[in-house]
């Protein structure tokens, strides 16, 4: 399986600022996803990011708040804009392989964000 890395691994930010989280994969993938996970909770899908098209956002998430870039098949960024303490969470990117292992998702290590 591929190696998925995220930067930063953690950050503490002040309210009103923005943070951009990077997700890098060491091989080309079609589908990339961004999730949010509160400690002890399940995963909530923020958006699906496909290369060459606009990200598809889930209900409750909007592009102005969580702009996403997907410039190529190995990289994506998620920006958390105008942060408030409610944005404190773990943000995870995941990738899905095409071909003979469809729909299986593999996760990066996550970015732990604290907003003060």
């Amino acid at each position, binding site marked *: 399986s591929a190696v998925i890395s995220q930067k930063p691994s953690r950050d503490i930010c002040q309210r009103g600022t923005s943070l951009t989280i990077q997700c890098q994969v060491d091989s080309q993938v079609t589908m990339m996803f961004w999730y949010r996970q509160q400690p002890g909770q399940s995963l909530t899908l923020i958006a699906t990011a496909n290369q060459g098209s606009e990200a598809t956002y889930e209900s409750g998430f909007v592009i102005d708040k969580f702009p996403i870039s997907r410039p190529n098949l190995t990289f994506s960024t998620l920006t958390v804009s105008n942060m408030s303490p409610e944005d404190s969470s773990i943000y995870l990117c*995941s990738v899905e392989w095409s071909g003979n292992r469809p*729909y299986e998702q*593999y996760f990066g290590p996550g970015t732990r964000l604290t907003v003060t």
Partner: protein
Amino acid sequence: GQQVMQIPQYQHVQEGEDFTTYCNSSTTLSNIQWYKQRPGGHPVFLIQLVKSGEVKKQKRLTFQFGEAKKNSSLHITATQTTDVGTYFCAGLGRAGNNRKLIWGLGTSLAVNP
């Protein structure tokens, strides 16, 4: 909307005891996946079940997909401390023209040595 319920929410066992977590969907699923998340870690893919009634085994772990493709279970035989973590099921459903994973809330397993 589509929901996947998972029970129990927590399970505390003695090492060597068996453990089972159950997943139930409100709608028929295309497939069901299971993930394990260790404390402080990220979800790790375990397995995918596609066929009605399918049963798969990974060493001490047995995964089942129901005949109606609406429920699934994960059974661990003779738990070990390395089994500690949260087990999530995720069903592949549909949202409009897109398919998406619908995640259960997870079952957190604690194992006493």
